[in-house]
C-alpha cells in the first residue's frame, strides 16, 4: 500500500521529505495524485492526540513526537529539558523572519548594536541560515530563517507568521524608507547564491564568513565597533 510505503520512507528518512522527492522516487509506480492523496491520509491518521504526529513545513513532511508529551519524554530520556529561547534571540529571530533576506549590518542598524553573537547563536541552533550574498559592495551574507525555524514554531511556511501580510506591507511601504542604503525592497532582492557553499554546513561557512566580512567592513564601522572580535560562546 502506498500509505505504508510513505510511512516507512518518512520514518526511515528521519529528516523532512518533500512531496516532490517522494514523487521523484515513486513515479514509476504511482501518480502524483495518488501520492498526494496518500500523504493527506497519512497526515490525517498521524494527528490529534497521538504520540507521533506528521508535521508539514515548506511542502515537506516529517514525523515528530507530539509536543504534548515533550515534558514526559525529556524527563525519561534526556538529562535536561529544552529551555525557551532567550528574549534577545527571539527578538532577532523575529526581525529576520519578517525582513529576510537580511544582512547582519542591516540587523545591526535596526538594533543599534553589534549582533555577531546573536547571529552566531541562531546559526548554531540552526534557526537561521545563510541563503546567499547581497549584490552590493562587499557582498555581505544574506540570512533567512530555516526549516528548523518553521518546525520550532509549528509553521508550515513563513506566510503563517502572525500578521505576516500586514507586516510585509508596512515594511515595504513605510519602514524601508528610512533605510537609505537599502536600494531594493527585501523580497525583491537580487540574491547571489553562487559563492555561498550550499552543500557544506551552512552555519559554519557563514560563521567563518562573518569574520572575513567584519575585516572588510571595519572601515565603515563606527569607531567603537572597530576590530570587534567575535564573542566567545562558552
Amino acid at each position, binding site marked *: 500500500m502506498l500509505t505504508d510505503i510513505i510511512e516507512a520512507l518518512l*520514518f*526511515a528518512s*528521519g*529528516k523532512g521529505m518533500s512531496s516532490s522527492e517522494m514523487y521523484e522516487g515513486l513515479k514509476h509506480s504511482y501518480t502524483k495524485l495518488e501520492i498526494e492523496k496518500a500523504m493527506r491520509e497519512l497526515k490525517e491518521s498521524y494527528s490529534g492526540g497521538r504520540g507521533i504526529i506528521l508535521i508539514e513545513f515548506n511542502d515537506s513532511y*516529517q*514525523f515528530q*513526537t507530539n*509536543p504534548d508529551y*515533550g*515534558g514526559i*519524554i*525529556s524527563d525519561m*530520556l*534526556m538529562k535536561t*529539558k*529544552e*529551555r*525557551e*529561547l*532567550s*528574549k*534577545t*534571540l*527571539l*527578538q532577532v*529571530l*523575529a*526581525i529576520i*523572519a*519578517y525582513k529576510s533576506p537580511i544582512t547582519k549590518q542591516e540587523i545591526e542598524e*535596526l*538594533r*543599534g*548594536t*553589534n549582533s555577531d553573537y546573536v547571529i552566531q*547563536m541562531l546559526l*548554531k*541552533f*540552526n534557526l537561521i541560515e545563510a541563503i546567499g550574498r547581497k549584490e552590493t559592495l562587499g557582498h555581505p551574507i544574506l540570512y533567512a530563517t530555516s526549516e*528548523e525555524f518553521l518546525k*520550532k*514554531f*509549528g*509553521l508550515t511556511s513563513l506566510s503563517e*507568521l*502572525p*500578521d505576516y501580510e500586514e*507586516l510585509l506591507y*508596512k*515594511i515595504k511601504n*513605510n*519602514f524601508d*524608507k*528610512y533605510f537609505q542604503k537599502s536600494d531594493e525592497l527585501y523580497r525583491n532582492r537580487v540574491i547571489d547564491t553562487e559563492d555561498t557553499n550550499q552543500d557544506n554546513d551552512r552555519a559554519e561557512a557563514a560563521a567563518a564568513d562573518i569574520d572575513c566580512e567584519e575585516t572588510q567592513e571595519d572601515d565603515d564601522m*563606527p569607531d*567603537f*565597533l572597530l576590530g*570587534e572580535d567575535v*564573542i566567545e*560562546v562558552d
Partner: protein
Amino acid sequence: MSFGNEESFDVNCDVFDDPVPIEVLLEMCRKGKVDIRDIFVSDITDQYIKYVSELEVKDYDNISSFILLASTLLELKSNSLLPKPVEVDENELSDQERFFLKMEEYKLYMEQTDKLRNREILNRFYREPVFAEDEYRIIIKNFDIDKLITAFSSLLEKAEFEEKQEEPKKIAKERFTVAERIIELIEAIRAFKVVNFFSLFEKDYTKLEIINTFLALLEILKQQVAAAEQNGFCGDITIRYTPLTDNFDTKAEEDLLVDANGYH
C-alpha cells in the same frame, strides 16, 4: 533519538540578554504611555539620559551603543525645537522621520516576538535517519569495453610472460599491499570467526609481509571488525570476529574501487 536541534538550547544565552538601547526607549514610551511621535514633547529623552548615566559599566561596547542613542535623541530633540528649514527635499526623509519609522518598526518586531513566544514548541523529538551520512550505495558508471579488453590483455601478457619463464623465479616484490591484506584478512575473519595471527603466514614469509599483515590487523582492529588478544608475552595473537561492530563493507568497496585511479 535526536532533539529538535542538533544543539540543545540548554546554553546560557542570558549573558547577552540585556535589552538593547532601542528596547529600553520603547519600554519607557510604553510605561509612560507616550506615542513614539510625541517623544520629543515628553520627558522620555530626560528619562533615557538619566537611565544611561546610571548604567553600570559592564561592557564598553554596550555602553557606547546606549550613549550613541542618547546623543541621537538629544540632537533630534534640539532640532525639533528649532524652526524647521523651509526647503526639504521631497524624496529625502528628515532625520526625525527616519528615527520615528525605525522606532515604529522595532516596536512591531517586539510585539511579534511575544506572539512568536506563544508558538514556540519545546522538547520536540525526531528520529535519527536510518541511513547515516557516510553510508552510500556505489553506482558503477562509464562501462567501457576497451578498458575491459585492456585489463584482460595485461593479464594475458603477464601469463604469457610467466609461461616463458623456464624456472619460476623468486618474486622479490611484496606479494600483497596493506590494502589487499586488509580485505583478505577481513574475508578470513568473517569466514573462520577466529584466526591466529601466526597462521596468516606461509613458510617463505618475508619481513615486509609480517609488517604489512600487522598493519592490516591494526586497521581492522581500528575498524572494529575484529578484536584481538595476545596469548602471553610473544605468544600468538588470536583475532576474533566482532560481527556487531563490523561495518567495513562500504569502506572496503571504496578501497577496492580507488585503485581504478591508476588505470586509464
